[in-house]
């Protein structure tokens, strides 16, 4: 059979066949030689699953190495809901093994805090033999696992909760913000406080196990590779457990005492819902105590917080227990601000340390037209002829009103000298404390007033800065706002001779074996130039306010051995429109060589000298080595 026609037709068939085979070879070459790398990666992605084991988090110690946060390690049994949904018999078997009634086990498995794909712990502190049994019979218990768990424990309960912070499961926002970092969904992360700031040190390195998995999700053993988890580093704080406990206790007792007293003007009991205390070392900026009341228990957040507990923490009626008022609360400083007004008046040359002024109990702004021209002393008392130290001692408002008015009327750059002094001491800016969420506070000036008027014309009816505003500013009223930490840190700068320090709660990071990994050195952010003559005049005023009978803080320090442990301080009472007065007190001691600054701020609690100063006194008692006495409210002065 060989006609030419047929030969031609067979050739056509041959050509088609050859091209089809050529196409197959070409494609095979492309896939297996040119593009093989891409697909090999895909094949690995297909079959290899990496399982992570959470490492124990680092511990947190106080200044003396006493543990504030530790871990409790134990064996837990977990159940992954998704894996047991088709095998109810596993639940029955597990209930028998754990010695639990089945309904109870089902209830634990259904814990709404966990996603269906996350292992739910159903039994803690499981005995070794149960763990061994589960491991040996893993085929009978799909979705059930026995794992070592390390869980946060707080040996001192809620002590220093705002400093320590709490830990929780990472959320999407936090995950996005840490893209490229070593964070995965389901990881624990520090949500606030030191836990948050030092999360990278504390978290450690997860253990990883690379497993081979087939198309239906079955795991092939043994694992391809695995590495054990690495415990996180420890953080040692500057906080002293004893001072912290004393500060928290004194604050709580002070608030309690304030609630038992009455506002003389209205006759109503003080609400005293909240307050805060800062104790810091003015020599290096380290915090010994940072208390905020009301507080919370960080242990509530372990393994996810119960919704009702969390709702309670968010309820406005409970005054925000999660807020750290020492760094987030912004208060008018009242008369404690007079320190900065005094510095401004002295360094502009407006007054000399011994310049006197006759305090007649009130102050009239000259050439004044308008609704408010006369400013009265708090309490309406007149103190007669006073110089600067005396004005600080008795907290003469008229003396400082006069400074505010004269600086303003003097014109030129000195018009804003008070703001300048306040800012030099760190007010109006974040101190840089190694805890998140710090507020900035506010030092008002003509520019900020203009903006405030534009933004809120109801609250700020005029947009220009007037003499009255400067008069108000001079005694720490008006829009001025400071955080308790800023106030303490500003007084620390005065106490140490002018160094504005960056306050800190962490002293060092330690490896699990105790060797230091990183040391936090004291840092100074700026320097205030203080003329020694000016400083000693102000210091004299602050000491006298505690030591002299006419001093506003004297009542609180009755019986305090000031000879051996001299204290300098200033009371403040901030009027807040619509609520009761904020009690403020800030002190440092020993006055001649300061080691401690104590600031106390108590919301709606009355006079600083009457309520806040006794709280500070009790803390200073402790710092001086005296046995702490009950908080006794003093006579009611500014």
């Amino acid at each position, binding site marked *: *059979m060989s006609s030419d026609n*047929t030969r031609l037709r*067979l050739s056509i068939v*041959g050509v088609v066949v050859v091209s089809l085979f050529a196409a197959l070879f070409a494609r095979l070459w492309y896939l297996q*030689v040119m593009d*093989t790398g*891409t*697909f090999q990666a895909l094949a690995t992605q297909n*079959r290899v699953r990496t399982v992570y084991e959470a490492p124990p988090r680092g511990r947190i110690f106080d200044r003396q190495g006493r543990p504030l946060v530790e871990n409790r390690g134990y064996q837990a049994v977990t159940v992954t809901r998704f894996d047991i949904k088709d095998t109810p018999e596993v639940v029955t078997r597990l209930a028998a093994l754990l010695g639990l009634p089945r309904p109870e086990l089902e209830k634990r498995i259904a814990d709404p805090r966990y996603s269906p794909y996350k292992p739910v712990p159903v039994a803690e502190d499981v005995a070794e033999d149960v763990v061994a049994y589960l491991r040996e019979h893993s085929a009978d218990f799909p979705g059930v696992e026995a794992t070592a768990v390390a869980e946060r424990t707080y040996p001192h309960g809620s002590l220093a909760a705002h400093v320590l912070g709490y830990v929780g499961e990472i959320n999407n926002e936090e995950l996005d913000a840490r893209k490229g970092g070593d964070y995965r969904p389901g990881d624990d992360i520090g949500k606030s406080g030191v836990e948050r700031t030092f999360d990278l040190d504390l978290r450690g390195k997860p253990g990883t196990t690379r497993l081979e998995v087939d198309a239906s999700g079955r795991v092939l053993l043994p694992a391809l590779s695995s590495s054990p988890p690495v415990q996180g580093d420890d953080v040692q704080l500057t906080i002293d457990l004893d001072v912290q406990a004393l500060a928290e206790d004194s604050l709580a007792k002070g608030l309690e005492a304030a609630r038992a007293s009455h506002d003389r003007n209205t006759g109503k009991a003080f609400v005293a819902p909240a307050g805060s205390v800062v104790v810091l070392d003015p020599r290096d900026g380290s915090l010994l105590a940072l208390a905020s009341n009301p507080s919370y228990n960080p242990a509530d957040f372990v393994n996810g917080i119960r919704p009702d507990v969390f709702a309670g923490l968010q309820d406005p009626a409970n005054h925000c227990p999660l807020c750290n008022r020492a760094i987030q609360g912004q208060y008018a400083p009242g008369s404690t601000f007079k320190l900065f007004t005094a510095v401004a008046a002295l360094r502009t040359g407006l007054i000399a340390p011994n310049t006197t002024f006759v305090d007649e109990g009130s102050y009239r702004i000259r050439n004044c037209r308008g609704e408010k021209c006369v400013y009265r002393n708090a309490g309406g008392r007149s103190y007669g002829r006073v110089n600067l130290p005396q004005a600080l001692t008795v907290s003469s408002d008229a003396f400082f009103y006069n400074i505010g008015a004269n600086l303003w009327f003097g014109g030129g750059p000195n018009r804003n000298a008070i703001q300048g002094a306040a800012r030099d001491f760190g007010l109006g800016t974040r101190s840089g404390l190694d805890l998140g969420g710090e507020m900035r506070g506010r030092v008002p000036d003509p520019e900020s007033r203009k903006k405030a008027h534009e933004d809120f014309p109801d609250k700020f009816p005029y947009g220009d800065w007037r003499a009255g505003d400067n008069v108000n500013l001079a005694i720490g009223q008006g829009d001025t706002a400071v955080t308790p930490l800023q106030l303490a840190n500003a007084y620390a700068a005065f106490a140490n001779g002018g160094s504005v320090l960056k306050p800190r709660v962490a002293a060092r990071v330690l490896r699990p074996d105790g060797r230091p990994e990183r040391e936090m050195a004291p840092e100074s952010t700026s320097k205030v130039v203080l003329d020694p003559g000016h400083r000693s005049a102000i210091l004299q005023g602050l000491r006298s306010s505690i030591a002299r009978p006419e001093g506003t803080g004297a009542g609180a320090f009755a019986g305090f051995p000031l000879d051996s442990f001299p204290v300098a301080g200033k009371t403040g009472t901030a009027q807040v429109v619509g609520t009761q007065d904020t009690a403020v007190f800030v002190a440092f001691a020993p006055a001649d060589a300061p080691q401690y600054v104590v600031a106390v701020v108590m919301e709606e609690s009355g006079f600083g000298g009457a309520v806040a100063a006794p709280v500070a006194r009790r803390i200073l008692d402790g710092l001086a080595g005296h046995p702490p006495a009950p908080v006794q409210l003093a006579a009611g002065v500014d």
Partner: protein
Amino acid sequence: MATTSAAGGASFSRRDGTAPWRHVDVTLLAGVAAIAALGVLMVYSASRNLGTDEGYFLRRQAVFCLIGLGVMALAATVDYRVARDFAPVIYVASVAGLVLVLSPLGSNRRGAQAWFQLGGFQLQPSEPAKIGLIICIAAYASHHRGDLNGRRMIGALALAAVPMLLIELQPDLGTMLVFAAILLATLLVAGARPRHMALLGLAGAVAVVAVFQLGLLKDYQKDRLGAFLNPTENTQKSSYNLNQSKIAIANGSLTGRGLFKGTQTKLSYVPEQHTDFIFTVVGEELGLAGSGLLLALFALVVWRTWRAAALAKDLCGTVICIGVLAMLVFQIFENVGMTMGIMPITGIPLPFMSYGGSATIAAFAAVGLVLNVHMRRFS
């Protein structure tokens, strides 16, 4: 052609140079045997993790191959011209099988009414029907001595249309396309007029467009086609299948992961791997070396088939060989092409490689016909 043997008195004398058994194409036989042996091994690799009995598919495929060898010997022994003379009977039997399978006697698996369940075996009548069509077209062409005018052309088309329509009713688009390929190639070689072939090509193109435009495709067919055109669009169903298939082949690289060591294979990531996607096992575990060798073996078999067509004593023999060639080439190209993403996914087995009794035995039978034509090229 010189012949020395006495007509009708075929002897098996050693000196008889025209005796058919002396002209068995050993190369073709060896090629097919090698492919089938590799196929059994690959089926084992792909199926040993399926179910509890790891040797189940291995044993069955080996048995299918042995039966196939027997059927091949039978198909080679009985002179193809006898088969030609029985073409009408073969045709009626093929069509009857395809009709019966649509009745309640047939059974439905994965959406196609294409099987007779016979004890532990499934018989797929469309597989022997392929052989039937090849013999019938060859008989028809040789009856008209290669002179296919318009009327005879229509006759041939009608002849093929009946089984094709019945297969599309199952529905089994892939097998129907194999029939179309066989029809096209055999008509070309049997002497169809060039303009008729052109018209046929045009009609085919119009039919393809019409199928799309009129929405005659089933959802799973659209899904497969979508996966072919946009493989990255989704990883569900067909796209998943195609992606895993490509990953497996590319993962083999030059020398492969080693027998039983392909992770895609071992961990069952490629669905239908022991049947339609058997080529991915070769690609992953034996690499370019193995899969290239397999394609070369297929090319060898196809070349020997083409050679048999060229050497055949008569038009009937040529057309039979070209029919077998079209069947093999279309199935190889479509099956291997789909695993590498250059053809859409259809359920066509790879001859001698894919697990399955009917297809394996039919492929052996087809090669038996080629051996038959080849060894009788002098008689």
